[in-house]
């Protein structure tokens, strides 16, 4: 065996010589330099001067990105400023001048709660379905079916919201009202299912379901992309330990995709919070009620859309102030999401 080792080293000698060769060339070049001072000058100045075109490109690019970044901030700031200035009259007006006659706060808080109820219903329904569908597409379906399904889901995201609203009011509300009756009769002891159920089915629950259908494609296609990015290396590590496919998903795909899932849900929530047309069409609005299957409740966005056309004076200010509140809610939701994501950065798999 020792002989073999020696043979091995012998065989490597020519290889080492080849490696040496370029070094010899460099040293030859170095020895030539002193005889040619011009060369040397070029070498030293090249540290302070730069290639013209490449550097200019760098500058243009960084300036362009800076400008784009500033533009977004300016637009955002402008919108916020507009909202605040326009909203101030409603905030300082005497309570009896505001719609409802009891001040802005009394006017807005049922709308805030209504908005949150509708959005939460939408997310509670949509998130598990979206994650399930995304996992099916990314890890279970045969490849052909997966790409077809992915395509259909992306198409769903392109349907305008008024179409969803029309579907909700013309079809879903009618079809679903019998089951509201059933809920009222059998689970009426729960405050959220307290009867009598709405005969038309145009309730906040229906609106939430329509919103769920609308945010489903967003959450699905985003989470699908995230799931597909799980490193094969980690998936195989789990499988090689004897994990079933579901265990592999629990050990690698879901933890790896966690920040992405949160972002996707937040994007979905953003759409649900701000959705106007679908809710305006589906929900026959009213005062705040705990029951999800009675007529009642209203969301901020739908309230603004329905009242803005005929509004004037203080009423406009009130509606804009409502918009400002929605803006703040969305901002808060996004900040919470960011907080959740950064808190787990250490274990995120990005390092």
């Amino acid at each position: 065996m020792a002989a073999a080792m020696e043979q091995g080293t012998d065989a490597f000698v020519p290889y080492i010589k080849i490696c040496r060769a370029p070094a010899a060339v460099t040293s030859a070049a170095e020895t030539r330099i002193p005889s040619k001072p011009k060369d040397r000058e070029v070498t030293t100045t090249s540290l302070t001067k730069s290639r013209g075109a490449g550097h200019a490109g760098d500058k243009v690019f960084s300036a362009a990105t800076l400008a784009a970044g500033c533009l977004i901030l300016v637009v955002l700031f402008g919108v916020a400023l507009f909202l605040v200035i326009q909203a101030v009259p409603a905030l300082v007006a005497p309570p009896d001048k505001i719609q409802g006659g009891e001040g802005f706060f009394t006017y807005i808080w049922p709308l805030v709660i209504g908005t949150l109820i509708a959005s939460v219903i939408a997310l509670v329904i949509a998130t598990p379905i979206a994650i399930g569908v995304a996992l099916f597409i990314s890890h279970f379906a045969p490849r052909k079916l997966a790409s077809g399904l992915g395509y259909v889901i992306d198409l769903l995201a392109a349907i305008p919201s008024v179409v969803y609203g029309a579907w909700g009011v013309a079809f879903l509300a009618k079809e679903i009202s019998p089951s509201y009756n059933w809920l009222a009769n059998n689970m009426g002891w729960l405050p959220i299912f307290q009867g009598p159920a709405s005969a038309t089915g145009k309730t906040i629950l229906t609106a939430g379901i329509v919103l769920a259908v609308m945010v489903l494609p967003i959450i699905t296609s985003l989470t699908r992309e995230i799931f597909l990015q799980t490193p094969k290396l980690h998936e195989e590590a789990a499988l090689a330990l004897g994990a079933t496919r579901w265990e592999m998903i629990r050990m690698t795909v879901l933890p790896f995709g966690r920040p992405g899932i949160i972002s996707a849900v937040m994007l979905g929530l953003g759409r649900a919070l701000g959705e106007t047309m679908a809710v305006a069409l589906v929900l026959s609005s009213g005062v705040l009620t705990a029951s999800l299957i009675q007529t009642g409740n209203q969301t901020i966005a739908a309230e603004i859309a329905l009242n803005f056309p005929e509004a004037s004076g203080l009423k406009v200010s009130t509606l804009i102030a409502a918009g400002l509140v929605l803006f703040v809610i969305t901002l808060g939701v996004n900040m919470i999401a960011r907080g959740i994501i950064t808190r787990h950065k250490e274990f995120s798999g990005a390092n």
Partner: protein
Amino acid sequence: MSKRIDVKDLNVYYSKFLAVEGVNINIDAKSVTAFIGPSGCGKSTFLRTLNRMHEVIPGARVEGEVLLDGDNLYGPGVDPVTVRAQIGMVFQRPNPFPTMSIRDNVLAGVKLNNTKISKGEADVLVERSLQGANLWNEVKDRLGKPGSGLSGGQQQRLCIARAIAVEPQVILMDEPCSALDPISTLAIEDLINDLKDQYTVVIVTHNMQQAARVSDKTAFFNIAGTGKPGKLIEFGDTPTIFSNPTEKATEDYVSGRFG
């Protein structure tokens, strides 16, 4: 706690492409077997058939038999999940789970089979596995930190700890040192020597000296040309393969006169 492997007439396919053809090999229990051969000859492909990881790739399939102490891994009704729990694997690139702490990484495989392991038992197992992988002293103060925060060599030893924590019958290693510095490489080679007392170890390596240092037997794989299937050319005691091989191709390869 260690079993032998006998492979009979194994053909390995990627869809229609025959990647490895007609392998017959008998791997003894409690021994180290090295696979050597030029790039693309199917060492990794063949290794992955030994714990049914090959079929994870879409379209990949196998013909023939792999017997673990006489039981065919590819027999009807055999669950690949069970097979993989008994035959551990260490990959070329260290792949600890980045979302888990060092401790949870070691316990990852154990928790799959035994979800109700008590904290005390788990602590003992973590220490024993990390000791076994020569990593305990370096990480004992930061078991709660993420596994991805370790150096490459430490990560690879963490992967070995994770593999031995489930007490497999066989450990497969695919170029476990190729991403490591010489010192980490030596640490892992020492570790392989220790593992041999308890486990059957199969290791793929491009480093001839490493094969000579760690293995009892060596298998040389070769390929006739691109698009042709890889084949097992020669299999024998490591000293024989390196100093007195039967085949001309083996001699050329181990002496560096290849190609």
